[in-house]
């Protein structure tokens, strides 16, 4: 923590969590919230976010079993009620805005309720129930559009753009017939186009993050990372100016 403060104490802090398991029907992870409480006391954050997914299931003797990877929540009313209630509780617990991130998913034909429809329908239903905000991961939109043959612009148009506070861009890789959200390459050209499209329509966005795995950062190198950040900055300024 001391090292982090030396490096970036003067910058605004935002939190991005992966362990809350907000969509697990058998229970979420209260230890994560306790950790967040402690962190907020040490270093207040501007906003905080989590992934929309589930990664724990019931194990033996009432224990929780970790799946090992976040899995998509089916777009059903039960899921919207469950996650909406939890997101609302988080909004009450912390002053700074709480954001949920749209996931990349590979399994098609998830069970769904007609009134919710799909993953974007689920996000809209959760936002309506909780008042939380959206972390729009454009690489996840891109992955889903390739893997499930859907129009990414139509997805963005249906998303609650007035509630987008943070945007992620990243790269991935093609594997076994799927485009994988691997955070292991430069940002594909179509994702930059999605950023330009979204930024000009989402008035509340406070920041854009280029995500990559730490292993890959070394391979990519500072020059290429700088180029990606510069490009994100140029799009930001162009869209904000217009």
């Amino acid at each position, binding site marked *: 923590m001391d090292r982090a403060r030396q490096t970036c104490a003067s910058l605004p802090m935002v939190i991005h969590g992966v362990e809350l398991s907000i969509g697990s*029907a*058998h229970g979420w992870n209260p230890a994560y919230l306790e950790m967040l409480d402690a962190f907020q006391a040490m270093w207040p954050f501007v906003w905080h976010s989590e992934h929309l997914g589930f990664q724990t299931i019931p194990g033996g003797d009432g224990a929780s*079993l970790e*799946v*090992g990877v976040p899995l998509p929540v089916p777009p059903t009313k039960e899921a919207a009620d469950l996650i909406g209630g939890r997101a609302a509780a988080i909004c009450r617990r912390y002053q700074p805005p709480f954001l949920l991130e749209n996931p990349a998913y*590979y399994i098609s034909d998830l069970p769904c309720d007609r009134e919710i429809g799909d993953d974007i329908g689920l996000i809209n239903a959760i936002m309506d129930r909780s008042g939380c905000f959206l972390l729009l991961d454009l690489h996840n939109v891109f992955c889903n559009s390739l893997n499930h043959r859907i129009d990414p612009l139509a997805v963005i148009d249906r998303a609650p753009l007035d509630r987008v506070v943070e945007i992620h861009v990243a790269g991935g890789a093609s*594997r*076994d*017939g799927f485009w994988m959200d691997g955070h292991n390459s430069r940002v594909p050209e179509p994702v930059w186009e999605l950023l330009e499209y979204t930024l000009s329509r989402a008035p509340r966005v406070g920041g854009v993050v280029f995500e990559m795995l730490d292993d890959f950062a070394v391979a990519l190198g500072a020059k290429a990372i700088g180029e990606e950040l510069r490009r994100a900055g140029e799009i930001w300024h162009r869209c904000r100016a217009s």
Partner: protein
Amino acid sequence: MALLDYQTALGRLVRAPDGTDPLRSLRLDEAERSSIEGLQANAGYRFTVGVQRSWCVGRAERAGYLTLSILPEDLRRRLLDDWTEAGGGTSSFFAAEAEAFLDFIAGRLPHPSHELTACRFEQATLRANQQAIGFTPPGPDRLQAPRCALRRGRHAGLVAFHGEPHAIIEALTQHQALPPVSAAATAILFAPGLEGLWRVASSREAALWEKLTMPVRFTSLARDGYRRDDIAAMLRIGFVEFVTPIGDRA
């Protein structure tokens, strides 16, 4: 289909695609059962299983980085496969994953061997390091209490090195050739309050570590010749710690 039942079925299928009866004890009608079973033919499901497996292997590789780096590739691959097949690698909490995975590896390495030493060295270092930041030694006053008992420090350890310890550690960390395995062992003590986390243990410290596999009253240790000052020094570095007797707990 109830959300809990769907998630339980999907989670089980992703964790163990070849597991027995992943739908046991779930409230599913025939159509729901058939829909879940049909997942196994879904290319996206199979891809998800592959992603899950690669995440689990990645976690285990980070958890046992040093030890895995000195093992032959076929053994390394087999240990990772066995670990993930057994459901390992799913915990995102690094300390828990490292503790469990290194225990798993240790049970499959020859004794004595430098590989086993590396494994225990890595585990003891991680364990001590986890507590090193913010470690506060207890006051020694409790040693005077009549029922005062002690146990091994939960973030401490004692590791046997079969050769000159500094030479072995240098070879391990610099990826150099390891010296021959010696029959005689040197005990290295790890503790969170120790500068640098480790040093060579004295024979008295090693003997105390063996004695404290179960909590022992200080009066008993004193009868065995352990002086108050020696125990206080071990408390200060977290090599041993106090046990609160059950009857004294709130």
